[in-house]
């Protein structure tokens, strides 16, 4: 299809799986990374999404290389898990800054080109915990549910220009983020999943690619759970 696809946080995990999926479809894929240097050979730009200047520079680099970004996957995210009483303000705000305000920054920049093109696809990576809540993840869960309001507002603002904005809410996925859990936490988590297992990053990437595809042209403002049933009813 050869669209220009930009994935933030694309050096590993779900972001990397998305990059590989789009590349297999024949798209021109660019990724951003921050702490983890990519080992893939995708066009990669270092970018801390907590800085608008770095976001702007990353987009400029991608535009120079491939042209206007047509599909944005806002996937970069961090965790800093602590129970509320142990969570200081900067633990909270730093996670919001990366996961929620970071999404705002990349959406804002991507929208410039998409408005001119009168088309575009934006997919925001949320999480089942944004809808379910999660003890010890008040900051992360708040940031991830914030993405729903962000996406739905943008869906309304940009719909008249054929730009769709959707949210994917994965459950437990085999990534570094879940590898950090203890065996006991992991067993407990999987126990709550009707499908009884974690997802592979590829299973998330497939849904992201669907939302960017022609078949999903009439889907906007949706929150698509890819969580093995964990978040049902939320």
């Amino acid at each position, binding site marked *: 299809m050869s669209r220009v696809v930009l994935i933030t946080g694309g050096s590993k995990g779900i972001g990397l799986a998305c990059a590989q999926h789009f590349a297999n479809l024949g798209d021109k894929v660019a990724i951003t990374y921050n702490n983890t240097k990519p080992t893939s050979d995708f066009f990669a730009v270092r970018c801390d999404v907590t800085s608008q200047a770095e976001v702007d520079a990353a987009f400029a680099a991608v535009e120079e290389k491939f042209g206007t970004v047509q599909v944005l996957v806002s996937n970069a995210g961090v965790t800093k898990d602590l129970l509320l009483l142990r969570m200081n303000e900067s633990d909270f705000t730093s996670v919001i800054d990366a996961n929620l305000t970071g999404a705002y920054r990349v959406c804002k920049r991507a929208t410039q080109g998409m*408005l001119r093109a009168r088309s575009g696809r934006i997919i925001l990576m949320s999480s089942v915990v944004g809808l379910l809540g999660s003890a010890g993840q008040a900051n992360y869960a708040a940031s991830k549910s914030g993405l729903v309001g962000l996406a739905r507002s943008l869906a309304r*603002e*940009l719909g*008249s*220009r054929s730009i769709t904005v959707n949210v994917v809410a994965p459950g437990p996925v085999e990534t570094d983020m879940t590898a950090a859990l203890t065996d006991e936490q992991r067993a407990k988590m999987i126990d709550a999943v009707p499908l009884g297992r974690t997802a592979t990053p590829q299973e998330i990437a497939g849904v992201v690619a669907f939302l960017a595809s022609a078949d999903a042209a009439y889907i906007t403002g949706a929150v698509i759970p890819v969580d093995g049933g964990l978040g049902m009813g939320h």
Partner: protein
Amino acid sequence: MDQQLFDRFKKCAVDVLAVDAGKVLLEAKFKEDLGSDSLDLVEFVMALEEEFGISVPESDLEGVDTVGKAFDLVTSKVS
């Protein structure tokens, strides 16, 4: 009226709002006459900011519903 300035202004309007140059008259209303919606106008303001190297805060845009009023605003910022 500074015709040269207006020509640059008009070019922005034609490019961003996708209207015929002949329709960009001072008395033309953005919404009714040019068919522009709020998103068009935001894009138009951003294009004007870039073209003229000016900054237009949201508060200045209140009541600016015609080409003439928008051009007056630009003129006041440029000079």
